[in-house]
């Protein structure tokens, strides 16, 4: 009986301390009331780490009304990852994308929420060389696509957590080194879902559809004015034929991403112009079912195709350079 009393007293003391701790955290009262003990510790850790990370940085006290909207404009959320993959910080709009709130997720490890096949890539990007500020690896801009669990239903509501789906996020960012303690260094990422819908396409973009082997099955007319090929000429040809050979690895990565993750951003690569030379382009692509799926769930055996929106970034460079046979055939004006 005595020991039970002692235990109870100890637990009460502990709870009190937890309570104190949670009150010190800058949280909304509603959120605070429902935190459990491990969450409190997690949030405390996040808080301390973020403070350590930002210590000594110039902080502009004036916050512009516009800058508050940054995340909204970007349509994404911010994620700060430690070297071990702990999500030290997530901006509060993460709930819009993952269906889970900031306080639920913060402090957890990203590997618990991402697709196992993407772990290797994430780990690769997390490789931060501690302490060596000038290391090339640390200064590189990180850019990758990963699949993360989302508890949102396709209608956008928070659904049953057991039936989570994979959401594809495009993550870009860089390393932030903490001079004081290298263990606090982390990777700052903005994560956005890849939108393909209803974006106004300028005259310098064209859409195309491809089979899963990247052969064109459709291309819009715009390609003629941008690259000089007629859409009919492209059908059945592989995109690898039309690009600069040095960019093959970039295309490869894009293709793989599409097959594995169903969405991809290609980064910059060169497409050959029919009359010679090339242009720099970037493609945003996604895998979509070839036929309109029924409401419940897409039939896995339906043929898939790749939808690509390609942005032309530059003018024609080196117009006299001929890198493929296509370019050697003169084109007569029709």
């Amino acid at each position, binding site marked *: 009986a005595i020991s039970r009393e002692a235990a109870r007293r100890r637990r009460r003391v502990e709870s009190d301390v937890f309570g104190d701790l949670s009150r010190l955290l800058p949280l909304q009262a509603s959120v605070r009331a429902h935190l*459990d003990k491990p969450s409190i510790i997690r949030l405390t850790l996040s808080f301390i780490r973020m403070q350590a990370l930002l210590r000594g940085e110039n902080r*502009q006290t004036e*916050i512009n009304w516009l*800058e508050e909207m940054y995340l909204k404009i970007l349509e994404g959320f911010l994620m700060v990852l430690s070297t071990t993959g702990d999500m030290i910080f997530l901006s509060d709009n993460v709930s819009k994308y993952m269906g889970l*709130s900031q306080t639920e997720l913060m402090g957890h490890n990203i590997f618990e929420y991402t697709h196992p096949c993407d772990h290797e890539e994430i780990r690769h990007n997390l490789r931060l060389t501690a302490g060596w500020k000038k290391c090339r690896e640390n200064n590189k801009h990180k850019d990758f696509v990963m699949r993360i669990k989302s508890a949102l239903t396709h209608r956008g509501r928070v659904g049953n957590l057991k039936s989570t789906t994979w959401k594809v996020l495009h993550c870009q960012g860089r390393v932030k080194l903490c001079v004081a303690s290298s263990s606090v260094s982390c990777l700052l990422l903005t994560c956005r879902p890849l939108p393909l819908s209803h*974006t106004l*396409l300028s*005259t310098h973009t064209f859409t195309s559809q491809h089979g899963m082997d990247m052969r064109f099955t459709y291309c819009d007319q715009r390609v003629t004015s941008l690259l000089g090929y007629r859409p009919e000429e492209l059908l059945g040809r592989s995109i690898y034929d039309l690009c600069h050979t040095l960019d093959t690895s970039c295309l490869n990565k894009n293709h793989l991403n599409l097959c594995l993750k169903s969405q991809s951003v290609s980064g910059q690569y060169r497409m050959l112009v029919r009359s010679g030379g090339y242009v720099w382009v970037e493609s945003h692509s996604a895998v979509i079912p070839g036929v309109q799926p029924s409401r419940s769930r897409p039939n896995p055996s339906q043929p898939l195709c790749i939808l690509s929106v390609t942005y032309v970034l530059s003018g024609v460079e080196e117009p006299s350079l001929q890198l493929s046979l296509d370019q050697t055939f003169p084109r007569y004006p029709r």
Partner: protein
Amino acid sequence: MSAGGSDGTADRPADQAAEEEEGPSQAGSAMPSVELPRKRKGEVEERQILNFNLEDDLCRSEEEDQQVKMKCFREPHRQIEKRRRDKMNNLIDELSAMIPACQPMARKLDKLTVLRKAVQHLKALKAGASGAFTDTKHKPSILPQDELRHLLLRAADGFLLVVRCDRAKMLFISESVSKILNFSKLELTGQSLFDFIHPKDIHKVKEQLSSSEMLPQQRLVDASTGVQVQADAHVRPSHLATGARRSFFCRMKHSRVTGKHEDKHSLPGVSKKKETYRYCTLHCIGYMRTWPSSQLDPEADCTDKETSSLNCLVTVCRLHPPVSHQPPKDVNIKATEFVTRCAIDGKFTFVDQQATTVIGYLPQEVLGTSCYEYFHQDDLQHLAGKHRQVLRSKEKVETQCYKFKTKHGSYVMLQSQWFSFTNPWTKEVEFIVSSNKVVSGPGNAKDESEAGSSTLAHEEAKQILEIPGLSTGVGMMIYAGSIGTQIANELGDTYRANSSPSSEASSPFGSVQEKCPLTSRSTSSREEEAGSSSHSQSLADSSKEASGSSEAECRGESSQLDLDVPGLSSFSSDEAAMAVIMSLLDSDVNMGQSGDFEDLHWPF
């Protein structure tokens, strides 16, 4: 929720959290029905996260007793408790690592102490932080707004831009633009966006800014079907309205030198020529928004004031990093491989198209020539040996790395696997298939191969072989090709004699070998001299053409000038020189004979 419960409820489209609580009992798991007080949705979600990761963090509920009951029933309580405790301990450890006060301690601190120290630490941080906590204007969050913004801008490498759609006047730019474009915020605010955009992109940007009637060329993409949606009246309003998204790339001017612009008062775009600026590619993401004009643009002139609202494009412009075109280090570049086929005497009968990228010659240029013409002299012995070997063996023979002469005169390092194909009826070797792989190595430069081979031998040979009256160029040519032919000959002999190949074939040479203490190179020269005579004529003809062309090609090579045999250069000793003379004399004698060399036996 237990695993059993989750299996049962996985397919049910439960929308409400309330349903979730009744799940376990409905699924028929053996858990006692738990009296769960109605909690807010957020909290139930927390508990639901248990299902997310059964292996992980099972300790998120408040009441530990209830939690235990809710866990996977199959697991003993013991293990569940243990896992929860471990997790808690890990968290406590992490916490103590982060708190400066806890670090110097030698032994591990207990939980309560760590927590108390954490409280103190937070209090200290709060006291030290400048106004971050006292700022009641914004809702409290783990990270105050300004720090968040700072983080974002770091991560994004970008700046915010608000542009008036009708005049393309830049109404607002964030400070971070100076880091990216090297122009200060002040310089850019109020200027026209088009002054800073690459001329070729102006049209593109104009389009993106257009908030008036949709131009016929504009298209939208319906992501669910991938089909372009025709712009029609129905779509238009949403496109123009607040919230319509924009995403495009453009090139903006980027001033090379910071501080350079400080002494100018005029607009940068006016005075400077295009060439003095570099452009960087930006990815602009944002949307259209309408605001009351007075708020945004105090400088607006009268006409503007009449319109009550302005359409603006609000974007985040992120720097598009330049792409490095080196293949990433962890990508294994497959070594270039190509296949060739040759007759038993080493003359190419088929050359893979890919070979051109390696050796420089087009297939038709090498067909009919002997592979020995391209081998470097250092490798002749070993390759001749392998040649002999493959003709007699049914297995693949692998060569060591050797040098192969390319069209431009340099050498490329190859390694090959040879395999002979025997006609099953005649039981004779018909051809040799060679699968060649490029070996990356230091010795592929032309200079290096020449440097390596510019030994004394070369110089000697150069001197010695200037035999008066004889065109040594042609003479040397003969021996290159004939190595292969001779080896083929040997094989022919073998078939005919139908005896152990090595004894007969080597006997003509064996004696020669014994006679003179020659280097291996000379041995091959002996073979050549022995075998070269009768077919020297035919060879000479074909070699002449080859030599003519290759001589022209190889004019640049210094040490191999006089002896310019593709692949085979000089012999290394006096004896070798003698051999040459001997063979030349022989060839004079035998010239005119028809070239059915298979009938020749060398009665040594």
